[in-house]
């Protein structure tokens, strides 16, 4: 009985809220069209920026690493491949999450898609972080080869220690993200399980 009273009370509170809101107008209603168009364009622009940066890094890398710094061609090739793979992975996740059709699905389906895209993003870092550490080590080695013993100092060790600390921080954040998304997936499973 108490329960029914509480729920009835909540329904009345909901009606009160609706009545309050029905009296309101949306501010800047007449500017809605322009705002919406701008927001959507901003999202589309991000796709192009991600792709452009990835592609630009290939010629820029050649100029910077090979021409300017005298690093090996092989280093530039591997760096370019790595950049392209990173761009592809970022683009894939971003596209999945920003899919305009996703919000039209039911809540469980949409949440599953977001969670799987985010999990992919988190899993990707398990490859990305060690790859960046390796790349950094290789980069330092390449510079060391060119400049001889000039790196036998704080710069070299600072780079190594910074890389390791960065990797540890990145991986711990990643573990946390993984757990959060696993929680969401568990919630969905609990919700959809036939009782």
């Amino acid at each position, binding site marked *: 009985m108490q329960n029914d009273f509480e729920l009835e009370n*909540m329904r009345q509170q909901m009606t009160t809220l609706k009545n309050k809101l029905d009296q309101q107008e*949306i501010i800047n209603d007449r500017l*809605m069209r322009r705002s919406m168009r701008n927001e959507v364009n901003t999202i589309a622009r991000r796709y192009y920026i991600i792709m452009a940066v990835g592609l630009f890094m290939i010629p820029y890398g050649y100029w910077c690493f090979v021409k300017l710094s005298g690093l090996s061609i092989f280093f530039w090739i591997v760096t370019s491949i790595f950049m392209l793979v990173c761009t592809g992975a970022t683009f894939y996740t971003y596209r999945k999450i920003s899919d305009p059709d996703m919000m039209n699905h039911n809540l469980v389906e949409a949440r599953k898609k977001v969670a799987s895209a985010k999990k992919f993003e988190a899993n990707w870092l398990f490859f990305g972080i060690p790859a960046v550490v390796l790349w950094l080590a290789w980069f330092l080695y390449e510079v060391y080869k060119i400049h001889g013993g000039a790196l036998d100092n704080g710069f070299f060790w600072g780079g190594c220690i910074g890389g390791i600390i960065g990797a540890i921080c990145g991986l711990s954040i990643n573990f946390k993200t993984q757990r959060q998304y696993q929680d969401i997936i568990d919630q969905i499973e609990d919700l959809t399980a036939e009782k």
Partner: protein
Amino acid sequence: MNALERQFAQTVAEHKSTIYTVCYMFSQDADEVNDLFQEVLVNLWKGFESFEHRSDLKTWVYRVALNTCISIDRKKKRRSAEVRLTMDINLFEDRDEDTRQVDMLHKRISKLQPFDRAIVLLWLENLSYEEIGQIVGISTKNVSVRLFRIREQLKNMSND
């Protein structure tokens, strides 16, 4: 304004209370409500052209609004919109009796986990179990089981 934009503006005007209610129930302060409201409108606009009326317009609005509020990454910095679209109301600060009642509802609902929050909101809006199931993506039987649990949870809250 072309026909599609006019139609969209009309849809938003018709469902503004529904959209705002969902945003409010998933927010902790006035800024967050406004951000969510803006984000929901953007997502509605993105899907408006491709909306094929296979489901009821109100059902679709609920889906987009709830999906946005559940899925949004709150840690991310909000897009700075050129024009803020919101309503001239602050349910977190107004202190009249009606707002106090609304605040009590908000406090109870915000203690529930997101999916349960969505289910109880739809139930409070007098949607049928079948409609709730379609929006959330679970069977009618699951809706009734879930609602039973939510009611128990709400009852325990009021006993605390």
